[in-house]
């Protein structure tokens, strides 16, 4: 069985981001970019399944400008066998990504498609669900545990939901999106980094996949949240009551 993992190149989560002066977006020039943490977890899960002998190949895919190849190389260094880079201009919104993934799935025919639950730059949490609908595949989102059953050709997924944990059984092929507690991604070790240099990354264009670029979302403005104001230390209860009454107007 082949596993396909979708990974996204985002601003490193530890970077302190700044908004561009024209409020059109986040300033990404000269800022460290790395693989989306949830995508790392997705790739780690795929590699573990392969190491358990339940899958034959792990293919990493990424969509965007040329720099995505760096992120794919990291994925290969972690242990993926092949990479596919879809050359598309950024920004790519979830519906576009879902359509591209559908086209890739028809091409590669994997038994399992694993994605991160959301990207840390837009926090959409939509791509996994959309692609499952487009493919008409079962979906197990917010997975915190994944167990495959080869004979029954199904997967048992523990999902982290608001009420607690929900366990589902899905027939394969299926779409899984990963949550934080699924696993801890491995480090890219030197021997694997060297091996990754020789692993193939196939470049594809939008035309080859027969998908038309159509932007259904438009970002109007990006602003920073208001700066938290300093608190005031009061000296007595009377002062507190006075402030609540006259300044905050809550009593």
């Amino acid at each position: 069985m082949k596993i396909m993992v979708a990974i996204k190149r985002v601003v490193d989560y530890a970077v302190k981001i700044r908004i561009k002066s024209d409020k059109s977006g986040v300033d990404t020039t000269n800022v460290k970019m790395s693989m989306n943490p949830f995508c790392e977890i997705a790739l780690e899960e795929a590699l573990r399944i392969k190491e358990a002998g339940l899958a034959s190949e792990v293919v990493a895919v990424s969509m965007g400008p040329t720099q995505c190849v760096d992120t794919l190389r990291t994925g290969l260094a972690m242990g993926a066998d092949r990479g596919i880079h879809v050359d598309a201009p950024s920004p790519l919104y979830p519906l576009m990504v879902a359509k591209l993934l559908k086209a890739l799935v028809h091409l590669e025919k994997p038994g399992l498609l694993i994605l991160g639950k959301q990207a840390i730059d837009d926090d959409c949490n939509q791509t996994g669900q959309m692609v499952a609908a487009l493919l008409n595949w079962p979906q197990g989102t917010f997975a915190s545990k994944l167990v495959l059953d080869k004979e029954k050709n199904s997967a048992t997924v523990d999902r982290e939901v608001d009420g607690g944990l929900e366990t589902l059984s899905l027939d394969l092929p299926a779409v899984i999106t990963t949550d934080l507690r699924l696993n801890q991604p491995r480090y890219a070790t030197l021997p694997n980094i060297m091996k990754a240099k020789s692993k193939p990354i196939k470049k594809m264009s939008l035309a080859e996949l027969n998908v038309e670029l159509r932007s259904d979302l438009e970002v109007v403005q990006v602003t920073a949240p208001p700066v938290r104001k300093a608190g005031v230390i009061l000296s007595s209860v009377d002062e507190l009551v006075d402030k609540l009454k006259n300044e905050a107007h809550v009593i």
Partner: protein
Amino acid sequence: MENHKLAAAIAYRLLNQTKHSSKKIIHQRLLIPNFSQLNPLSSTSGFTRHASVPLKRFLASYRWDLQKSSLIRMQNISAIHHRKFGSVASAVVQRNPNFSTINNDDLIYFEKILGAKKVIQDHEELETANTDWMHKYKGSSKLMLQPENTTELSQILEYCNSRRLAVVPQGGNTGLVGGSVPVFDEVIISTRRMNNIISFDQVSGVLVCEAGCILENLISFLDKKGFIMPLDLGAKGSCQIGGNISTNAGGLRLVRYGSLHGTVLGLEAVLANGSVIDMLGTLRKDNTGYDLKHLFIGSEGSLGIITKVSILTPPKLSSVNIAFLACQDYISCQKLLFQAKRRLGEILSAFEFLDSQAMNLVLHHLDGVRNPLPSSIYNFYVLIETTGSNESNDKATLEAFLLHAMESGLVSDGALAQDFSQASSFWHIREGIPEALMKAGAVYKYDLSLPVEKMYDLVEEIRTRLGSAANVVGYGHLGDGNLHLNVSAPQYDDAILSQIEPFVYEWTSRHRGSISAEHGLGLMKAEKIYYSKSSETVQLMASIKKLLDPNGILNPYKVIPSSLSSSSIEAYDKVSLLIFSNVQDVHMKSQPTICKLPWSTF
């Protein structure tokens, strides 16, 4: 004359009956007045391999010197003997009777100057301030003062000087040699309220701030402006910049940015008599007169209290890469360092090493730490960090270097951090070693500068000496030739200590190393300075101390041997000799007796 001969003979017998080794007289350098008189070939490090001195020659020089110099050195026999055996040094240093004790008038005066809020007598707060980070040294101070600005500090010091009240300047209290806590009842002067950032020049990168600013806060402040502090250490969450400068802290980035002697552009210090010395320049070049700030950098609070600092900060470069590598033996680590300096060149910003014992300790005692290379047990781990301005270039250079290292067999395995969180987890392993050692029980810490080829030999020798009694751990700044040798035992044990000291110091001295690379001398190594500095140098240091602090109130009993500091010279104006009774059992049980000899003898 007869009494004198008797005294000399007893002293000679004492010296030769110490527990340590056969070359006894030579170790006790201080005890033999003018050692070079006896042996003109002795090395400046204070350690020679010559056999014991014959009694007649000893007597001759002994008598000569007693006539010429003070008797202070004899009096320190007890102090030095005790210190070699005891693990709590303060139990054996004697409180200088010249220092006054605090009385009510003093408290009233302090409260008048500072206000009640900044005069601390609360028992719990004093407990913390009296104990050092390692819980190895504890003083018994009854008073802590927290001035808010230079004027208040100057007034306090002036008063303490006039009243002969000993003081201990205290910053973050993260020192590892007992230099930041009182030995007896010295007044603690804490700089924690002096934590303002005064100015920052965006163009030149010069930061001017008060001495009580916590290093991590300065790092965060500079981060927003696109700069970094030139030093970084594991204690950054608590240590203050004034303390860092007073101890000339090294840290993790010294190999790239150099020491504080190079990056500090100016400082403001207050002397013992309260006078404020303003050397707070922000100029990169200023050759007008003697550059006195260098005296204060590394003086450990014994020459003056630093109140303001102006420091040159390097720009924050965007591309930081870090690799965690495994080597099979120490030779590979050295060769790796050689290659790194050549192939990584200007982008190398840190080169640290740790052995497998250190790694095991960290994995065992700290939470949230995992081994980046779990597939195998390796003997040594090396952490290499590069900082540069071009991400793709740096990554390519680092990968090429690592590929070469793997192909030539220097590196058995390694991991390259892919994002900030992986990078900080690599650093957490290295920075967490001191914490893990604390959790493991008692720890004997040694911070030595040694030639890189010899560094690990010492660790192995100590390991052989101690056998299964203790866990010997070696790690450190391989890039600077600085070894942190730590011996971890379930509890403090004098038997273990006697196996380590003075062997460690003698070994270091023999290889012309430093017995304190970056931690300083503090209380722990105050009497050991002769292992690394000549007696003439130390005499000059003592003269400078006497000049800047005539009453010796600033951080007494530390840094330089107490026999040389002015306070003890004044104290002993009577002619007297301290002689041990019962030399065989010097394990704290003996009481020194004072024997008075008539003036006419000399």
